[in-house]
């Protein structure tokens, strides 16, 4: 059996390629309302399941457990608690950041779920799990209806 071995492995070729598509995602039925409230009213909303009582943050169209449609929306306030956090020294491309960034999962009292966001106005060494934080919104004119309409969450006194 003369399996082909004459090709020098050093000459093995790579062929370049890239992804051409771009994306434009709809926010969905629940998402559109959630981001409209953030943009227009600087409010963080949850959606409540009339069957099991769970309040989803961010809101969904349906309860993933009961499969009921969620029709009752509640204002959950802008204050939450740091459930867990990480300090990132690298950016999304793996490049070293000039200044480390703190990302936290923030939970809101009496609700299910939470929001992942940046923490600001705090040094990494001072962040604690369980710390109380509050959303800092960008000025109304700069808000575009995305999660970045919240600039960051900052620590607050209890």
């Amino acid at each position: 059996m003369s399996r082909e071995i004459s090709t020098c492995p050093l000459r093995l070729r790579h062929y370049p390629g890239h992804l051409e598509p771009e994306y434009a995602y709809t926010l969905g039925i629940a998402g559109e309302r959630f981001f409209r409230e953030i943009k227009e009213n600087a409010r963080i909303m949850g959606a409540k399941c009339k069957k099991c009582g769970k309040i989803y943050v961010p809101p969904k169209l349906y309860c993933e457990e009961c499969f009921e449609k969620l029709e009752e929306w509640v204002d959950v306030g802008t204050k939450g608690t740091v459930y867990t956090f990480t300090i990132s020294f690298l950016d999304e491309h793996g490049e070293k950041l000039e200044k480390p960034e703190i990302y936290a999962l923030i939970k809101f009292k009496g609700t299910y779920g939470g929001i992942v966001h940046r923490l600001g106005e705090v040094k990494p060494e001072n962040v604690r799990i369980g710390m109380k934080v509050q959303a800092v919104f960008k000025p109304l004119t700069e808000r575009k209806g995305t999660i970045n309409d919240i600039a960051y969450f900052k620590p607050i006194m209890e």
Partner: protein
Amino acid sequence: MSEKIKEYPGHRIKTADLRAGLVPLIRYKPEAKFAFSAGAAMSRFLEELKNGRILASVCKKCGRIMVPPRTFCEICFKPVDDYTYVKDTGKINTYSVSFIAADASRVKEPTIVAVIELDGASPGMGILHKIGEIDWKEVKFGMRVKAVWKPPEQREGAITDIKYFKPLKEGEE
């Protein structure tokens, strides 16, 4: 839809609203780039294109001469036994004439594309390529064609080192 179901969900977005920017959207462009390893057979195939030759694999068990070349025979499921060259001539197995670009927009000059069964390969063994030097209305099934190569100094070891295949005249090789 069952006749038992009276309402069906879904909110249609009008194209006009999309174009007018009335629909909130989150935009994203993937940045990933790739380097596909060509592997042993296709690396050599690409190298040989630079030499103006088309490489094929030989399986002695089923007797097939396969193009594009591969390191194993997918029928016998064993390594191929040898490599050989097939000719840069062949015949049109099927063809199409494309009036649209990659993004589905219209183009002025249509592209003729074809599956070309290469001389020297097993029957039915073809490659995808373009057809040139002919009006698209004149193309025929079974038409004899020959590769038109880029000049050697412009070849880069890509399938596009063959610019296209052109029709052969009666008796021409």
